[in-house]
Structures are given as C-alpha cells and as structure tokens.
C-alpha cells in the first residue's frame, strides 16, 4: 500500500528515454498526443513539431547524453516543451544565426535548426543545473 502510494508520488511527468535515433519517433508521438488531447490547432502544433525535431535531434546526435526527458504541457493558452538531457553542456541560445542571405551554392549547411526553432517558438530559456541541460520552449496561443 505504501509502495503504491510512493510510486504514485514519484511518478514523473513526461517521457524519460535513452536518446538514440530510434527514440525520435517515440518522442514525436508523445508530444503529438499531448497536443491532440489539448486540441492545439494544426498550425501551432506544426511549429512545436518542428522545434521538437530540431532540438531533440541535437540531443540525439551531439549531446552524448545517456538519458533524456521530454515534457509537453499543452492547454488553450499554449504549449510548453521542456527538454532535459545529461549530455555535454550546450546552450543553443548562444548559437550564432546563419547567414540566410547567401545563395544555395555559398550556403554552409548547419545552424539552421536553432535559428528555425527560435522563429517557431515565442520563448526559449536555457539553463544548466545538476549536470543537466534544460531547454524550455513556449508557444503562446492567443
């Protein structure tokens, strides 16, 4: 009885997962479901999906993390997406914006993901605490 209660208390919000390539679909599904339950309109949901794809794939490919956590809170006022991982400290908000005025030939590929995420979401906040990267992204629905 006590164990069950404790279990209930320590149950964590969101999805804890090993950030390998195969995990991306699982994470996408979890976020899509959370937004569907909250009736988030297609246009806004797409923005969140793009931001998730950009930032979670960064964790998968570059962080070296063995653990990641994805939390999606969605309601009428908007969507908040929190990504945590125990990989190398990386602040995407310090990432320089790419030169989008270059032609296809000149353009170096890279840095676009962070740039797009910043354009898609209304607020982004990064902190490194307790050995974890934590990126909080918010999209408001007016």
């Amino acid at each position, binding site marked *: 009885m006590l164990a069950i209660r404790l279990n209930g208390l320590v149950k964590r919000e969101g999805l804890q997962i090993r950030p390998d390539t195969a995990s991306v679909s699982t994470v996408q599904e979890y976020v899509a479901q959370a937004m569907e339950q909250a009736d988030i309109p297609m*246009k806004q949901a797409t923005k969140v999906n*793009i931001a998730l794809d950009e930032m979670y794939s960064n964790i998968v490919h570059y962080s070296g993390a063995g653990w990641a956590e994805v939390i999606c809170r969605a309601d009428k006022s908007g969507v908040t997406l929190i990504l945590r991982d125990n990989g190398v400290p990386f602040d995407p908000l310090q990432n320089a914006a790419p030169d989008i005025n270059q032609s296809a030939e000149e353009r170096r590929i890279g840095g676009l993901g962070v740039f*797009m995420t910043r354009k898609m979401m209304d607020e982004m906040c990064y902190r490194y605490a307790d050995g974890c990267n934590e990126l909080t992204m918010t999209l408001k629905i007016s």
Partner: protein
Amino acid sequence: MNITKNQNGELLEMALEGRLDTVTSPKLEKELSTSLNGIKELVFDFAKLEYVSSAGLRVLLTAQKVMNTQGSMKVCHVNENIMEVFEITGFADVLTIE
C-alpha cells in the same frame, strides 16, 4: 513519409507525403542519390507534405545543388506552414516555388 516517383524521360516528379524531418529525410536523401542520373527537370509535389524541418531543408538544398549543374528543380503545392519555413530560412529565394 511516402515518396511517389513518376519519371517521364528526363523529367522526374517526386510526391512527398507526411513529414520531412530528422526521421524521414535520410529516406529522401537515399532516393535522390540513385534517381537523378540523367534527369534534367526535377519536380517536387508537396501537396501532401505536412512540414519540413532543417534536416529536410538540407536534403532539398543538396538536390538543388545537383540540379543546378544538370538542369532545373521546382517545388509545387507548398502549404502555408512549409512556406513560412522557406521564408524565414531564406529558402524561398533559393528554391523555385510554384
């Protein structure tokens, strides 16, 4: 994501359905790497494509570079979400969108 190819001589049409993102863009990249030989006109039909993330943009850019050397490429039936992505990233000027 589903890819439907329709080739007519030197014209290749590719209709994409679903999402062009981290998970699916390697599939398109692979498909393009074996499909563009001898193609002078490449047409992407995005009528059933939901969205494109930067992983997808990379593949489109690679295709554009290949087609710049051997012919032309255009993208048709782009939805509002994808157009927004093309615009904020400058891809609207790089790609031929109809």
